[in-house]
């Protein structure tokens, strides 16, 4: 049974920090459907539209009927572990450094055989298991067999932890803790066992009931951070950058601007200053430090979370400039993801629908409660999900976007 993690000892400052390595990332383009699904926490395989055969490994044509009409469909990961091994000498540095690496072959009930990473709580073969798809440190999908029934502390299994960013015993910077969302995220992190939370606060003279709620928590340290000021970001990065394991960018500027009824660029500029340039400054000053500590033992640096907006996918004209700033941030986050990939730092983008806060006063429900958004962030960290669409509105917009982005654009125009 998996031994629960214990609080790590203070790091010996003389010991060299292990440099990050990642597994091989080369995959055929036609395999990427599995990653598109795994990024959302879904296990999908190709299913033949003509004969219904489920395929694995991913391929270009059905191995049963030669149809090229293969579509990615969510599948049930139930199956039987039929053989296992423990790789003690891998050919890649990443695996050598993490050996022994248990692997197995699972015969899925839905058809194919899959080679999997093996959770240590799986019974010896033959044994019933569940197969999940997860993103490895290189950002590519690996399949992992987990026990048929949950076991205590199963999330602390070494292979699972290579695919997740559990906040337990980790140190987290929340870039704006003064907002409803920021404070909710801080509370959720502490609930998830975070060791230390730096609560970023810009304009400290402004009273915030949200900040007052969390300020007294023993794990929380309030730090000055104004993402619109380069000096402020640089100074904080100099102080704590080398200790941050997870950065959650909650800083957001949101005004209700409709292009049809507004004049001047001041609001739009302010939104960009926080939502886009803020992210840029954080990426420039905190990114390198996180990257360098990406393989630093049990509590390594592990993840970067951006709270974006579902409006980043397609502009919501009632909040036109806000949507544009989030689209810009989304674009930059993809570049950040590329920069982080060689180190294994996971960049998680969260695309909420309207949050139940003052700036969405005039929108009809359902609106996403800050606590629900915070819970989705924690789930994403614990499960290693890369793209998060929390709440019913986000899910619906995503479905409409994936179905037909042009139709969504027209629908949003009203």
């Amino acid at each position, binding site marked *: 049974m998996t031994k629960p993690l214990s609080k790590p000892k203070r790091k010996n400052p003389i010991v060299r920090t292990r440099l990050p390595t990642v597994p091989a990332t080369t995959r055929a383009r036609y395999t990427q459907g599995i990653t598109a699904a795994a990024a959302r926490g879904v296990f999908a395989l190709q299913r033949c539209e003509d004969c219904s055969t489920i395929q694995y490994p991913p391929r270009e044509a059905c191995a049963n009927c030669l149809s090229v009409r293969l579509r990615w469909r969510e599948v049930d990961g139930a199956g039987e572990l*039929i053989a296992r*091994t423990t790789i003690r000498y891998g050919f890649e540095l990443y695996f050598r450094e993490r050996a022994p690496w248990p692997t197995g072959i699972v015969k899925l009930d839905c058809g194919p055989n899959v080679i999997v990473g093996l959770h240590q709580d799986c019974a010896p073969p033959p044994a019933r298991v569940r197969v999940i798809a997860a993103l490895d440190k290189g950002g590519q999908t690996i399949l992992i067999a987990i026990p048929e029934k949950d076991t205590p502390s199963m999330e602390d299994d070494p292979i699972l932890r290579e695919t997740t960013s559990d906040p337990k015993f980790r140190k987290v910077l929340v870039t704006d803790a003064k907002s409803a969302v920021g404070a909710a995220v801080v509370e959720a992190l502490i609930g998830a066992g975070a060791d230390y939370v730096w609560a970023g606060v810009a304009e400290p003279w402004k009273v915030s009931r949200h900040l007052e709620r969390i300020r007294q928590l023993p794990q929380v340290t309030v730090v000055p951070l104004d993402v619109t000021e380069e000096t402020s970001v640089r100074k904080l990065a100099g102080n704590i950058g080398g200790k941050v394991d997870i950065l959650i960018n909650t800083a957001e500027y949101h005004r209700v601007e409709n292009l049809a009824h507004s004049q001047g660029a001041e609001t739009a500029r302010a939104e960009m200053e926080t939502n886009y340039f803020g992210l840029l400054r954080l990426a420039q000053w905190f990114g390198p430090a996180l990257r360098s500590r990406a393989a630093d033992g049990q509590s390594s640096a592990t993840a970067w979370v951006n709270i974006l907006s579902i409006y980043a996918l397609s502009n919501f004209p009632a909040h036109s400039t806000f949507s544009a700033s989030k689209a810009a941030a989304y674009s930059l986050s993809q570049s950040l993801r590329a920069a982080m990939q060689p180190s294994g730092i996971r960049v998680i983008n969260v695309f909420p629908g309207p949050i139940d806060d003052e700036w969405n006063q005039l929108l009809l429900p359902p609106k996403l409660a800050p606590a629900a958004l915070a819970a989705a962030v924690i789930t994403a960290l614990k499960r290693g999900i890369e793209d998060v669409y929390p709440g019913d509105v986000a899910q619906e917009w995503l479905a409409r976007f994936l179905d037909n982005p042009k139709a969504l654009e027209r629908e949003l125009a009203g």
Partner: protein
Amino acid sequence: MSGGRRGYDDVVLAAPVTIPYVRFSVRSAHWFLARTLAELIKAAGIRKADIDGMAVSSFSLAPDTAVGFTQHVGLGLRWLEHMPMGGASAILQLRRAARAVESGDANIVACIGGDTNHVDSFRQGVANFSQFARDAVYPYGAGGPNGSFAFLTDYIMRKDNVEPADFGKLCVAQRANASSNPYALLRKPLTLEDYLGSRMIADPIRLFDCVMPCAGADGFLVTRRSIAEKLGLPKVSLLATIERHNAFPDDPIQIRGGWAQDVNELYEQAGCGPGDMDFLQAYDDYPVIVMMQMEDLGFCRKGEAAEFVRRNTFTIDGSLPLNTSGGQLSMGQAGAAGGHLGVVEAIRQLIGQPLTRQIPDTRRGLVSGFGMINYDRGLCTGAAILGNDA
């Protein structure tokens, strides 16, 4: 469809050559293959221009294939085959070459296989072995073939109650066979205690279950009987052959190879049975596969290889001599030459020019090839029965 296979009455194999194996080489595959050709020409006493057909197997020849190699060594040919099927390549080469010389499309075909081995080239080969391997095997611990064969070994040990000592016995016997082979990279005597005490690489695969990657090459000639006689070449007959690819795709794990599908026709074509074989040159990139070949090629029943192993010695002077040059487990695995090693050793034994010791009274024997773990199993199998030409 079965039966009705035409024989190879007019076909012979001759001139077995080996380019000495080395652990690492700064040379390219072209160097090893060119030397193989030169040795073949010398051994057969022919001119370079007399070779009018060639079949080539090599992983490290890339980006060249067989055709690029013809220009590299200045060979003009009327028949050419590139055979990228790993440990099954030698059998597949000789099958095609046999039909080519029989029909007159070629007179003398050089069948060669070889690879170089630079430091780190094995890792690169494993990482990019196949598309399925790259997408769905290598990301799981990057164990290469050790990991893949560990699954089969794990499964079969449980299914058939095979003990580690059963695998060990094969490794120990092959090492004993290698003891006087000047080409074997591993000649230090191996005991069962050494085997059982060796470290785990990918459980239950131990160090001594693994072949050592190296550089080297092997080759032989396929020609018509009349030509070999005119040249005065010691030669062997080709009695029967089979090949099969991607057999039994519905087996959840590889418990049998394609041999099992074709074995009856193999012996039917040869006019004899497994009990008539004076030796077995089996593909030994992991002992579990040797045992699978013993079952699938009819030496014992399915699931009873362990019992069969316990009953035989597999040494040159004992019962069912196995991999009498030491096999890849003692010679080393020179990439695609791994499949040729068994064929050249079989020819050597049958013409009475062994590298090591002669198997007494040997008249015919079986050579088997196995190749290409594309995803979860080896896809290519082949086998040939060779007979002495007395």
